């Protein structure tokens, strides 16, 4: 059987859409090739992955022209359940790709569907957990897993059928740097096994040593092709022109700004010895202290589970603190009085939309006239003006994320906390959000970022709070390259682990773990 994936002058238009999502694509993906599809959001990357895994044209209907041959099958015959035997798919949001609620059952799910005999299935499931090195995640509730753990379970689930092709759609979108490095190790093992890997991705830094080639897409077309070396040495101006994320984290530089100092003495925020917990006698925060005046953008750094989001929720008043005190302008605040002063943008945008249009969302519960100009301004600034009358749930994930930022901007609360505001965003949209964060800081607000996005941090940070085990390990101003390099080195410490040296078939060992 032919093992390559081939498109010849292939075009595709989703049903109900005016424009083609893919235009005149000619592409030959060889067996064992590692291909990265890059380009800004909406350029057609995901559409190619859907053609390969059979979701197009059966699940996502539309019209196509040209030739698409997947492992010798015409695209029309490549139904997802047929393709699924040899082509495994991993999606961006691992939470909504899980069909069962238990990690072991999830890993067994594909085998059950394809009627793998139980004895063989049990063996495959055990092997998958051991190959991905996640034996400790067996039998866990999928809701108790972190994003990184869920993505690893998704990988374990994908290897059970021993596929020949892996198709991944932005698998790193919700992951921190440590989890991305673990993802990289898994991909390296799969590559060493000889699997064909196709990834649509914004974050390129973890793929630069793995990919055989990068295809740059724009408006549904493949407009350029780069070898890893070419991508690695692409000039910054060229990268930014193409709206591509940095191919190497080491390249990311602090962006000094003349107006970095913008302190607003009218606003003071002090967190004093704050303890907080979800379960009784299991404290997550253990006496957090920090103080800020207005006009600062704080970046919270720390390893997974150190308490960054918990701190965000506690200083917002969403989670009660057990000990300590929080002061705004020297006035002790808790619960509702904190909620009146602090705005928290959660990771999941869908939980923060309540009306039937983007514009109404911004002015909801307020006097519309007074906010009209401000709402129009921020909608234009964030590239949302064209969709202002659309239902928020009809927007793309990136657009919804920007709406939540617009909500924070339009709010009159002086303190704004953003939890992973740029996850899964391309360079252009990340930059738009960075601009808005800067603007809020210039207005004298305090912005607190919980983010793993180093490029975003480089553009916005003025203060850093390092948290370790629920305590403040360090707190410092960021105004020089050295200050920023401390943050960068801390985040990149995950990269220092040794590379994988053996293949999965040969014993599945990674030196770093």
């Amino acid at each position, binding site marked *: 059987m032919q093992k390559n994936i081939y498109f010849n002058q292939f075009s595709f238009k989703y049903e109900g859409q005016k424009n083609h999502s893919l235009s005149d694509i000619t592409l030959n993906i060889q067996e064992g090739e590692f291909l990265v599809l890059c380009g800004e959001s909406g350029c057609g990357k995901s559409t190619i992955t859907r053609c390969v895994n059979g*979701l197009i044209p059966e*699940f996502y209907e539309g019209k196509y022209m040209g030739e698409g041959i997947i492992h010798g099958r015409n695209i029309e015959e490549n139904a997802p359940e047929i393709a699924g035997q040899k082509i495994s798919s991993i999606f961006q949001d691992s939470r909504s790709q899980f069909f069962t609620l238990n990690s072991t059952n999830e890993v067994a799910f594909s085998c059950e*569907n394809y009627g793998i005999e139980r004895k063989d299935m049990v063996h495959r499931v055990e092997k998958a957990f051991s190959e991905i090195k996640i034996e400790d995640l067996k039998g866990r509730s999928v809701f108790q897993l972190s994003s990184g753990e869920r993505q690893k379970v998704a990988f374990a689930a994908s290897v059970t059928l021993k596929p020949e092709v892996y198709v991944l759609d932005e698998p790193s979108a919700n992951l921190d740097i440590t989890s991305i490095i673990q993802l990289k190790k898994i991909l390296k093992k799969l590559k060493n096994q000889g699997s064909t890997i196709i990834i649509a991705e914004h974050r390129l830094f973890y793929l630069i040593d793995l990919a055989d080639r990068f295809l740059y897409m724009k408006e549904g077309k493949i407009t350029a092709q780069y070898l890893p070396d070419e991508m690695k040495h692409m000039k910054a101006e060229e990268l930014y022109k193409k709206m591509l994320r940095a191919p190497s984290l080491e390249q990311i530089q602090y962006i000094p700004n003349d107006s970095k100092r913008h302190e607003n003495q009218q606003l003071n925020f002090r967190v004093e010895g704050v303890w907080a917990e979800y379960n009784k006698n299991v404290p997550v925060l253990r006496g957090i202290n920090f103080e800020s005046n207005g006009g600062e953008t704080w970046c919270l750094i720390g390893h997974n589970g150190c308490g960054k989001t918990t701190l965000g929720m506690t200083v917002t008043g969403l989670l009660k603190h057990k000990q300590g005190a929080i002061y705004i302008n020297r006035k002790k605040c808790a619960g509702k009085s904190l909620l009146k002063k602090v*705005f*928290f943008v959660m990771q999941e945008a869908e*939980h923060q939309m309540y009306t039937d249009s983007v514009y109404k969302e911004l002015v909801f*519960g307020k006097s519309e006239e007074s906010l009209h100009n401000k709402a129009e301004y921020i909608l234009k600034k964030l590239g949302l003006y064209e969709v202002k009358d659309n239902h928020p749930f009809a927007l793309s994930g990136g657009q919804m994320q920007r709406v939540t930022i617009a909500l924070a901007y339009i709010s009159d609360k002086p303190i704004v906390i953003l939890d992973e505001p740029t996850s899964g965003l391309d360079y252009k949209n990340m930059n738009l959000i960075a601009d808005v964060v800067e603007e809020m800081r210039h207005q004298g607000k305090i912005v607190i970022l919980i983010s793993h996005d180093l490029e975003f941090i480089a553009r916005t940070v003025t203060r850093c709070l390092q948290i370790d085990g629920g305590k403040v390990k360090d707190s410092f101003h960021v105004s020089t390259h050295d200050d920023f390099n401390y943050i960068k080195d801390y985040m990149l410490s995950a990269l220092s682990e040794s590379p994988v040296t053996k293949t999965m078939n040969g014993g599945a060992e990674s030196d770093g773990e």
Partner: protein
Amino acid sequence: MVSKKKNGFQFDPRVNLLTVVLTASLMFILQGEYASVYLFVVVISMAALNCKIKIGIKYTVIFIFVYGLSLITRGALQVLIKAFVLRGVSLGAAVTVMIHSADTSKIIVSLRQMKLPEQLLIPFSVMLRFFSTLIQDIKLIRFGMKTRGISLIGKSPVMIYELYLVPVIMRMVKTAGNLSAAAETRGISWKGEKTSYEQVRFRVVDAAAAVILTGIYTFLFITQL
């Protein structure tokens, strides 16, 4: 199968599903003054037998609270509480016990053993999957409202319903799309015979429980106590 896992004795998922189906069927049919109490007693006994003590206590507190409300309210509100909310608590308890007593996979396996058509089985399993995430979604929506300064105080029940319902439904629709796409690529529509990782067996004690349950509900239906 009666599983004696680390969380104790549990009936076969089909027995717990039977409790849900019978409670849902009878909750609006029973007319008696204390029908809601009888329904609740049956459901809470099933919770106890399934070793779901915490769930039982939680729902008992809720039931007592709502029952108290039904005594102090008057008119249409009293009717609403008695006819819907109070009986709804029993159904909620039955569904919670079913979900917490067996993973979705076990429930699906047991239904597959009953030769339920896949066309019914798949939507049912999707429904179970969503029910489990519902509480989490509602919690996050409440957080979102709090931080947006949206207060429910003084808002009409219809408005409150909309504020919660719109994001919950839209979130579900979106998740359903993603979930279906992922499931399609993992062979859910594969026409061949399916196999199961989980092993489920219907034992004598499950059969006895099913007969007793059916008997109690039939008695309640006939006597309209």
